[in-house]
């Protein structure tokens, strides 16, 4: 029987965020003896939040030095929790914080790590990870003999655990903060109304390079494209993705979509976001249609090319139309 440690870092208010609760669901489904390990400035609210989940032990590294997302302190906290728990399997949500730190912890413990797991469940009686290789091109199921085996679970793959709060008996794991030369000084984010990346949005809007090409009148209408896209994002609260070709144009300083950065890029060298719906516009190519929306459930595309080989077979609906015209009408309807 495997022993399982769920590692979670707490939020500024001391509670657990959704990805941690999703990982808890996965940990409980594995069926072994479960320990919950918490790290953060405050950990009691998080322990109490999941007090009814059935975990056998609650361990915590608590203190102000562990509030910040920083490699040296996060690895120290996670290592201490792993050693205290002595678990054979360590499961954690794939947050940017744990993704930065836990591979280093696996190295320190002589264990192994698998990241970007989309499933972690028993197959033929043994735990097995499902994950994608070659940027979402192929899917593999694998298992490991080494222990501890650390697994980072991608968000959105399991339903978040829910249950009544209670009072957990938390065992403190004493740890002095390690010396560090790094200080986290803040977060840079676009203003709320300029934010185009919205992980929790119901819709992903993918813009392709066609928006910056010459239109029927022989002219480029980049400013109009920018207005239409921004107007749609504001009205629909969709998240914005861009094809590589469009994002590269922006990076080269051309007068195109000024709000488009490499952070928006979807596909092979971009992200593969998870949203219930996706609408691609003026896109042609494998990356936006295949890799970029691998995890998009309902997909529609607007494209002037009825024979677009990438939209056909990958989208549910392909509208053969001028995206400028359609999105102008869509924005009018959304404004009513």
């Amino acid at each position: 029987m495997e022993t399982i440690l769920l590692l979670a870092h707490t939020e500024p208010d001391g509670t657990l965020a959704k990805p941690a609760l999703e990982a808890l669901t996965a940990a409980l489904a594995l069926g072994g003896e479960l320990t919950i390990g918490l790290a953060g400035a405050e950990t009691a609210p998080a322990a109490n939040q999941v007090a009814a989940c059935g975990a056998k032990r609650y361990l915590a590294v608590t203190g102000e030095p562990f509030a910040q997302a920083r490699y040296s302190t996060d690895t120290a906290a996670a290592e201490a929790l792993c050693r205290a728990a002595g678990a054979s399997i360590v499961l954690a949500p794939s947050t940017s914080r744990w993704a930065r730190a836990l591979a280093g912890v696996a190295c320190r413990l002589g264990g192994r790590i698998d990241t970007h797991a989309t499933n972690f469940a028993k197959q033929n009686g043994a735990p097995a990870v499902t994950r994608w290789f070659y940027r979402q091109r192929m899917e593999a199921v694998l298992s490991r003999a080494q222990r501890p085996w650390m697994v980072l679970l991608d968000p959105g793959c399991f339903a978040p655990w829910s249950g009544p709060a209670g009072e957990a008996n938390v065992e403190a794991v004493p740890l002095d903060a390690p010396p560090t030369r790094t200080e986290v000084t803040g977060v840079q984010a676009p203003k709320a109304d300029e934010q185009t990346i919205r992980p929790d949005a119901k819709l992903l809007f993918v813009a392709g390079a066609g928006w910056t090409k010459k239109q029927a009148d022989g002219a480029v209408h980049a400013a109009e494209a920018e207005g239409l896209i921004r107007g749609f994002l504001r009205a629909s609260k969709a998240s914005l993705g861009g094809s590589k070709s469009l994002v590269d144009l922006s990076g080269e300083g051309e007068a195109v979509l000024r709000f488009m950065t490499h952070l928006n890029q979807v596909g092979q060298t971009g992200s593969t976001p998870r949203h219930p719906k996706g609408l691609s516009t003026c896109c042609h190519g494998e990356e936006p249609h295949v890799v970029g929306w691998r995890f998009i459930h309902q997909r529609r595309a607007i494209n002037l090319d009825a024979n677009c080989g990438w939209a056909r077979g990958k989208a549910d609906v392909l509208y053969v139309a001028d995206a400028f015209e359609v999105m102008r009408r869509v924005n009018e309807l959304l404004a009513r």
Partner: protein
Amino acid sequence: MSTALQIVVCGSIVPDPLQTLEPVIGAGGPSLKNEMMLPAVLDPWAAHALYEAAHLAQKTPGSKVWLVSLGPKAKLQQVMMTVAQKAPFELVALDGPASGFTDSFETAAALAAAIEAIPGLDRARLLLFGGWESASRGAGSTMQMVGERLGITEQFQGVDQLTVREDGSFEILERIEGGRHQVSTCAAPPAVLGWATGHLPEPRNNPQVGMQNMRAVMPALQRAKAAAIGNSGLSFASVSLPKQQRETRIVKNMRAEEIAREIVAWIAEE
């Protein structure tokens, strides 16, 4: 800027993203069909790391860049013909697999050993660069393990910007959730930086830099030690391509107003 830096970039090769990939499972585990025949490129995020390293070294007199690359020697040679024209560096080659199915733990051990063996490397001035993930394994775990093996505990991943200050400290922007960046300062090297895209465009080919690099690249490839990367303890139950093919409804000759109405109704559906 006073302190000369020693920048080691870890980066391997991946199949050209435009190639169709098909997995095959053999006695030694999974691999790609006709893997040795596929055209290869320098891994995109590692390439960004190399360009950022070269840019930083150019701005910091006395600095030097090494590229440590693990891959099949013949494929490395092909890729270096192009990469060598992009930026000045000294190649440290390891002859071994560049497959996405190799384990990051053992890959990190081989890379760390190669870095430790670089003559005259000053760890106090070391910045260890690489891509934050590869386009093959995509694990985002190798650089941290290389750093751990070299005793470097100042690490940053998903880096889009590095600004070195006059006093030798530096500011780092790392990608975090929701399209935001975490801003940190690090007082001094050594540090590990796993690069995302950064801000620099791909440099134009410079034949002069290429010729200068290739004088050292060929001997480095000849010296490349074999790195046996076993996948001990790792077993693959299956590797498969997604079969999902959708029945696409092609809508032609519908007026823009009607399409817009349909899209708005679809967006509103729960």
